[in-house]
């Protein structure tokens, strides 16, 4: 039987990828970040030992264009390419998919009334890529886990509501638990925390709000999910609105969760949050 064995919330920021590729682990500006992810990487490798990762992300004008924009899109392939975001392709191996598991998810989620766009090809940009090498070790050719990318529209309003994302997470848990194979599944919700990349308010961050988020997503996730996009964006910035992707992860976890690790760092234009959760029910 499938089982959800970890829930991770993690920001995605292009500069983190550049710092990783340029091996800035010991650079004073970046060391706190890499150190902050290390305990979670160890926990995932030594205790969680996931077979598959469902990673919830958004594309940033890389693979999907506005001519035809899905609200939710699920990868159903056996491999996924690393995208070139215009500065050359990052030196990361392409990702192995799990088409059989994806197919199960697609069947189950659509039957559960989540009408997903299904993708046979998806090149993955920093929305997907940022967290992966910080959470799982890789070599030049391989990753230790298979992946299922799940894209959410957080670019063009109307966005799905926080509650819809939360319910999608709940449906994912039902689907995983109905999977006949013994498969250990980690769910990663990416994005946020506070940041804004447009207008006179470019660079807006809200550290206080971010720190509360890291607590309340554990204790009061339904209250958070009931906030309107306007309320979230007013506090956390226009692009901070993408935090709704964390609700997919949270909805896939049990009602009560146990915090394994928490980290926060706001060096430049994004409040970078990391949260590792265990099911406690």
């Amino acid at each position, binding site marked *: 039987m499938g089982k959800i064995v970890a829930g991770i919330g993690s920001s995605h920021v292009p*500069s983190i990828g550049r*710092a990783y590729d340029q091996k800035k682990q010991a*650079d*004073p*500006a*970046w060391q706190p*970040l890499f150190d902050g992810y290390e305990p979670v990487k160890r926990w995932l490798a030594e205790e969680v030992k996931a077979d598959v990762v469902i990673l919830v992300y958004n594309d*940033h*004008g*890389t693979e999907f*264009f*506005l*001519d035809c924009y899905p609200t939710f899109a699920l990868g159903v392939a056996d491999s996924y390419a690393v995208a*070139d975001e*215009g*500065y050359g392709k990052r030196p990361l191996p392409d990702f192995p998919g799990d088409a059989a598991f994806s197919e199960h998810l697609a069947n189950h989620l659509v039957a559960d009334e989540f009408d997903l766009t299904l993708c046979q090809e998806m090149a993955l940009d920093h929305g997907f890529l940022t967290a992966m090498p910080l959470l799982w070790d890789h070599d030049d050719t391989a990753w230790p886990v298979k992946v299922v990318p799940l894209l959410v529209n957080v*670019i*063009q*309003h*109307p966005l799905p509501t926080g509650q819809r994302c939360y319910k999608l997470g709940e449906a994912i848990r039902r689907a995983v638990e109905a999977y006949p194979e013994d498969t250990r599944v980690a769910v990663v919700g990416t994005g946020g925390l506070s940041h*804004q*990349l*447009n*207008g*006179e*308010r*470019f*660079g*807006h961050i809200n550290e206080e709000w971010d720190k509360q988020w890291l607590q309340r997503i554990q204790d009061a996730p339904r209250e958070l999910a009931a906030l309107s996009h*306007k309320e979230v*964006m*007013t506090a956390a*910035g*226009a692009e901070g609105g993408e935090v709704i992707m964390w609700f997919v992860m949270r909805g896939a976890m049990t009602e009560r969760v146990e915090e394994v690790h928490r980290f926060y760092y*706001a*060096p*430049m*234009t994004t409040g970078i949050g990391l949260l590792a959760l265990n099911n406690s029910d």
Partner: protein
Amino acid sequence: MPDTQERWGIPGTYVFDLALSRQGYAINKMCNSLKFDENREAFKADEEAYMERYGLSEEQKQAIRERDWLRLTQLGGNLFFFLKLGATLGYGLYTIGAQMRGESYEQFMSTRNVPGAT
């Protein structure tokens, strides 16, 4: 800028909703094409012809001529797409952001917690 922006009412913020997206579609479609090297070369060789080919309005063309990123945002340009235009012209994210705030690059950097983390 479409009236729908008023319903968001967030100061200094342009919410990329469907109305703004429709208004800026030509900008974003043109910018999206700049992910290919041959298109970047074509744009640099003749900006006016390239903008004409994508049907930008005169206001939109003028914002691009002036490298006015705030105006481009107000006219429906989406940063994730016009970053490709920025890359073609040599404008990075923080340069664009500082300009939208009405600051120099140095002023903007001095407002950051750890300006070395770029």
